[in-house]
């Protein structure tokens, strides 16, 4: 049998894969218009953030003939052939149309100008990226799901970005007006400009003939050099129309439950197909269509039924989700305007059956409640919203957990049992659940945990425990050495993952100097030399400058030390001074001078407290309401040296203008007229996160106790290298509040005692090191030539300071 598929997008790719997997014996030819094989269009945007086209491309099974850059221009139904634009004629016995859809470009004057784009293919993205390089601002027409995704992409390309939406609010298909308002708040907070009830009257060109701006219906012109149309998609049914196949009034190739068109030799699948009056713009139903068509082509009886249109996405860092119906007899809304959260459930008139829901800002209800749509709710709706779902939820086996791949809970459980799976990766491999949009991954993890399977949380090959478990083992058993711990609870001799973790746990629990005895061998090179390694093998020196406050005399000492040792000197982003380029044997000499002048270690090398940044506060600033510098210094002195799962940063601002950027810190404090507001879980770095308000108007004493407990609870329970931001998200803000503020676990006295021990036992690591000849002996480049500096280290000059000369690589290929 000769099977021909027109189009090579995700649906076509899935169809071919299913046919081959099910043992289709005929010949498969795929004719695709794009110059490349099918790729994951759902993940298209990741192409702009570093993923390559190859990464996104689906594998093509052996034996399939794939003709790329071949647009099909005609179907001869009588002769059973298709013809491509370049004149190639391909005969078929069975033809499948998988032509997808194309972006709808409204007939706005100026839409053909250079600088106007759509957002659908890798080629589109290449063109947008190129245009953005020379542009300052961009505008996206359409504030739906794809429009916001495109807007985020423009923002990522460095453009100041506008979104114009015809409707009264953003994402009108997924959220109601209330949700739209909350979403708008998030979107604007990210710096995007939103125009609702606005379309494009005209797109105007500049003197160079390229796009210069968009004129709104009200006459206002938005200056923009890049315009992206995202005003919906239209099924590509032109071939079918031409060939006289039945199409819908509003487009789409009409198919029956078996995906057959009005010609029994021709099927249509994916976004181009119209089933029971519906065209599906989500990949999940498209994949199901592909599976159904594959089964039918092989003689089976599979049937497509109306599919779920639930969506969950993370756009611009904001979770948005919609499931089931968007109205109902009754609804319950939870709204937290400060946190930017809006959640609504629609229920039947007896408030027992869940009909659907909308979430903005936090999609927990989507994850936990979506499978209950059309079923009895597992609790009172308001309670479910407030608590994020009941603690133990037993989903029925036929509840769909992965809508992209139509996988039910029962199928996941069966795979877990049959194949002895212990992680989500295994479930993905066996069932395909979780392999597309990823929004069901939390649910998969839940099912895994509930199925009683031991989920692997092993730290590394040497310990089957998580960091939190090891912490408890060490704490409860009073273990003080790595050797004892690995003998009794691990295997082998450790590695660069578990050794620093154990070193940190031992240090958090107050086991003396980090270079004492066996502990020294556990430390990463930074902790081992109490300095940060640099790319040429030298180290940097960061003295602590609590709160960023420093006397002129101390500044002069730093300057003198830097000058005398020839160190590169830079003000850091953390209100401190970093001295770079020290060789290991110079470190003790440098620190001797610094310690004598009253400096101590800044722990820039440790997973420990870094700085508590401050603004100048009420002492000098005309707006300040509290002494920010004074508090920052006392916090820095209190928590200095505290070893933790990852580094800890803090800041104190003297008023709501927030000049110290406290909301970007692990714990940040902002002064109020009444006292202090405490924010937790902020982060810069890879995944920036604004801190959550934890408690308001605290007295200084209350504030410090709250931070003590928050930090110690984090130190006890976080994973290795998990900043407070990720930890807080995994625990839930409410839960941590209960533990810390209400002592729901009854451990606060213990946490307090642990912090008190830390504060009482603090000693400057560098002072101890330079006073101990045993420790000092390690600070040499060569064990057989202690006085010899490393000859491989060399510097040139740049802007009047040193700069490392990098060594040529001598790579040995074995």
């Amino acid at each position: 049998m000769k099977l021909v598929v027109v189009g090579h997008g995700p649906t076509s790719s899935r169809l071919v894969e299913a046919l081959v997997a099910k043992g289709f014996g005929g010949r498969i030819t795929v004719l695709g218009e794009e110059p490349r094989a099918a790729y994951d269009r759902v993940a298209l945007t990741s192409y702009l953030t570093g993923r390559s086209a190859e990464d996104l491309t689906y594998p093509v099974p052996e034996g399939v003939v794939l003709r790329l850059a071949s647009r099909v221009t005609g179907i001869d139904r009588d002769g059973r052939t298709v013809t491509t634009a370049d004149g190639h004629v391909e005969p078929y016995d069975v033809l499948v149309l998988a032509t997808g859809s194309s972006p709808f470009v409204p007939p706005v004057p100026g839409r053909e100008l250079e600088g106007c784009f759509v957002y659908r293919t890798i080629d589109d993205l290449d063109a947008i990226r190129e245009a953005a390089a020379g542009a300052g601002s961009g505008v996206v027409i359409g504030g739906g799901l794809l429009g916001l995704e495109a807007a985020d992409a423009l923002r990522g390309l460095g453009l100041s970005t506008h979104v114009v939406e015809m409707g009264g609010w953003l994402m009108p298909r997924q959220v109601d007006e209330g949700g739209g308002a909350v979403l708008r708040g998030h979107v604007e907070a990210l710096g995007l400009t939103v125009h609702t009830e606005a379309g494009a009257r005209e797109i105007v060109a500049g003197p160079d003939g390229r796009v210069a701006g968009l004129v709104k219906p009200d006459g206002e012109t938005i200056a923009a050099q890049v315009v992206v149309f995202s005003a919906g998609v239209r099924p590509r049914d032109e071939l079918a129309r031409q060939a006289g196949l039945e199409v819908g009034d509003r487009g789409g190739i009409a198919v029956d439950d078996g995906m057959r068109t009005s010609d029994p030799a021709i099927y249509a699948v994916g976004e181009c197909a119209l089933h029971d009056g519906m065209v599906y713009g989500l990949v999940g139903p498209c994949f199901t269509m592909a599976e159904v068509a594959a089964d039918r082509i092989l003689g089976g009886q599979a049937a497509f039924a109306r599919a779920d249109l639930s969506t969950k996405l993370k756009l611009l860092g904001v979770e948005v989700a919609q499931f089931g119906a968007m109205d109902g007899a009754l609804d319950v809304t939870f709204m937290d305007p400060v946190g930017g959260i809006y959640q609504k459930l629609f229920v039947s008139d007896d408030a027992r059956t869940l009909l659907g829901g909308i979430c903005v800002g936090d999609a927990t209800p989507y994850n936990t409640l979506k499978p209950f749509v059309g079923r009895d709710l597992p609790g009172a709706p308001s309670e479910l919203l407030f608590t994020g779902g009941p603690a133990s939820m037993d989903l029925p086996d036929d509840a769909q957990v992965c809508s992209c791949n139509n996988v039910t809970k029962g199928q996941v459980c069966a795979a877990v049992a049959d194949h002895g799976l212990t992680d989500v990766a295994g479930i993905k491999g066996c069932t395909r659940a979780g392999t597309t949009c990823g929004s069901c991954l939390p649910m998969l993890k839940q099912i895994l945990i509930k199925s009683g399977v031991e989920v692997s949380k092993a730290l590394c090959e040497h310990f089957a425990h998580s960091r939190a478990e090891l912490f408890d083992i060490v704490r409860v058993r009073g273990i003080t050495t790595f050797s004892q711990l690995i003998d009794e609870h691990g295997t082998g001799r450790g590695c660069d993952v578990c050794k620093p973790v154990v070193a940190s746990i031992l240090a958090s629990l107050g086991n003396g100097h980090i270079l004492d005895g066996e502990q020294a061998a556990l430390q990463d090179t930074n902790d081992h030399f109490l300095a940060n390694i640099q790319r040429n093998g030298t180290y940097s020196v960061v003295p602590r400058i609590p709160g960023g406050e420093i006397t002129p005399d101390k500044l002069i000492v730093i300057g003198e030390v830097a000058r005398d040792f020839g160190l590169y000197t830079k003000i850091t982003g953390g209100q401190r001074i970093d001295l770079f380029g020290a060789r290991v044997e110079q470190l003790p000499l440098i620190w001797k001078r610094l310690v004598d002048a009253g400096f101590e270690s800044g722990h820039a090398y440790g997973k420990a407290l870094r700085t508590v940044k401050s603004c100048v506060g009420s002492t000098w600033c005309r707006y300040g309401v509290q002494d920010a510098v004074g508090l920052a210094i006392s916090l820095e002195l209190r928590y200095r040296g505290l070893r933790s799962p990852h580094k800890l940063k803090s800041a104190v601002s003297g008023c709501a203008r927030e000049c110290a950027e406290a909301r970007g810190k692990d714990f940040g404090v902002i002064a109020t007229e009444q006292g202090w507001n405490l924010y937790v879980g902020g982060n810069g770095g890879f995944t920036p996160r604004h801190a959550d308000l934890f408690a308001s108007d605290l007295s200084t004493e209350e504030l410090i106790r709250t931070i003590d407990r928050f930090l110690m609870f984090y130190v006890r329970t976080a994973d290795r290298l998990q900043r407070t931001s990720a930890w807080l998200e995994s625990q839930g803000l409410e839960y941590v509040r209960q533990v810390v503020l209400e002592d729901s676990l009854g451990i606060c006295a213990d946490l307090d005692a642990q912090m008190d021990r830390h504060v009482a036992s603090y000693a400057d690591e560098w002072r101890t090191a330079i006073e101990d000849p045993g420790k000092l002996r390690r600070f040499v480049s060569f064990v057989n030539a202690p006085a010899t500096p490393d000859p491989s280290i060399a510097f040139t000059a740049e802007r009047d300071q040193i700069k490392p000369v990098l060594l040529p690589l001598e790579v040995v290929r074995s």
Partner: protein
Amino acid sequence: MTVLSEATTTVWTAVCAYTDLLPERGACALVGRHQIALFRTFDGELFAIGNQDPFSGAQVLSRGIVGTRAGEPSVASPMHKEVFSLVTGVCLDDPAVAVPIYPIRVADGTVEVGVR
């Protein structure tokens, strides 16, 4: 007089006392122009490999964390954490890359490394 072909002569150089090496920690010896990373594992065995990290070019392998991978003694580069076998010098994360290994022994409490 015996003439030894240069390529096969191992010249032993004393570098430090055995007790100068800490268990599970490296040290570096400068032998001629070679920088050699020395390691003493927990069971007292000694290993010597080139000190230059082939990925970054920096002379730092002696400062990495020592441990085992699937039972094989290993060290992780302190720069970007690639793990090398102390036995073969091969990078266990990228077996196409290896660092040189050197013979090492203890004579009378003194550690000696061999350089060809």
